[in-house]
């Protein structure tokens, strides 16, 4: 299998699936560079395998998040519209930017987001539930014995970031969660665990849109994709469960670190 054992791909899928489910990212942002730079796979094979793994992570972790009522379905649907338009815009405008400009602008965005996440790590997005109306897109969550509610703020910004996430998804073969989750959590009043659960839920649909086309083009190496998925499926279940036990502040700090590392890698590739 292109020189590497099945076990290696299963382990890779498990690692990226765990982190992906924990933070609401599909995991493609880690998997694609490891498969290409680390293992020397052609970029098309890596993207096709990554998209399938993102679907596995999204579907498996959603089973846990849905049971806990953490997926904000209506918000997810609304953002998915912007993501799908962004995907189209990304495909149409890809010729306008050089690869270098693309990597550098993406790296700068992630760098700024990393700083914002660190700065706002201690900030709470929820208020005590006093029976007030959370609005059509807001919701309620229970933490320990206390009920809280959250309201969605700055919806145009949430839609804009989903549009950019869609464009990035189309251009770089990523799920887009790495943009959506930090913006929703830092600026739009959504608790990071709800943002992560909602993002993962919708990323499966975004990835499926591209996965069918990759499949029909013959980019998919069945054995590699199957091995990565077999690792990602159980690890995502574990990641989604773990995410409920970890404190929101710790998740935000972990997200800031991931943004910084991925941003640095993008800058390195762009320079």
């Amino acid at each position, binding site marked *: 299998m292109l020189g590497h054992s*099945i076990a290696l791909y299963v382990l890779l899928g498990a690692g990226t699936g765990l982190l992906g489910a924990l933070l609401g990212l599909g995991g493609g942002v880690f998997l694609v560079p490891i498969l290409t730079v680390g293992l020397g796979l052609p970029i098309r094979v890596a993207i096709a395998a990554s998209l*399938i793994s993102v*679907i*596995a992570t*999204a*579907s*498996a972790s*959603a*089973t846990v998040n*849905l*049971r*806990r*009522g*953490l*997926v904000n*379905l*209506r918000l997810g*649907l*609304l953002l*998915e*519209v912007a993501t*799908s338009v962004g995907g189209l815009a990304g495909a149409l405008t890809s010729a306008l930017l050089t690869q270098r400009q693309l990597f550098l602008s993406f790296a700068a965005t992630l760098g700024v987001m990393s700083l914002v996440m660190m700065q706002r790590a201690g900030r709470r997005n929820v208020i005590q539930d006093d029976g007030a109306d959370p609005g059509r897109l807001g*919701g*309620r*969550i*229970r*933490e320990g014995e206390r009920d809280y509610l959250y309201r969605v703020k700055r919806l145009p910004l949430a839609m804009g970031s989903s549009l950019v996430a869609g464009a990035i998804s189309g251009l770089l073969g990523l799920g887009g969660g790495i943009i959506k989750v930090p913006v929703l959590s830092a600026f739009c009043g959504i*608790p990071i*665990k*709800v943002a992560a659960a909602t993002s993962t839920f919708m990323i*499966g*649909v975004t*990835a*499926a*849109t*591209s*996965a*069918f*086309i990759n*499949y*029909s083009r013959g980019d*998919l190496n*069945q*054995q590699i*994709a*199957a*091995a990565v*998925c*077999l690792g990602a*499926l159980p690890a995502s279940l574990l990641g989604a469960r773990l995410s*409920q036990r970890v404190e*929101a502040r710790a998740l935000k700090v972990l997200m800031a670190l991931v943004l910084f590392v991925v941003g640095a890698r993008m800058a390195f590739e762009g320079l």
Partner: protein
Amino acid sequence: VKGAASGLDRALEALLTLGVLLSGTCLALGLWRDNPALLKWGLLLLMWTPVARVLMVTAALLWERDWAFAAISLWILGVLAGSLHVAGFL
């Protein structure tokens, strides 16, 4: 941390669990027995799972007469259908 899971949440959870279990089983058996047909079915089942999920959400929103969000869900279904058409599945 948890919220209140709705009836639709439960139905979606059941659908996704079914999709994940069936595809996972096909993929594991396919790798173990080196069977390309099983691998293909496992991957296709996994890829169709989000499509089935969007279909279920759309049907539920239409049933609830939530026209605005049903229209949004239909848009997403349309994008997926476009992708399936380009890929030659529709």
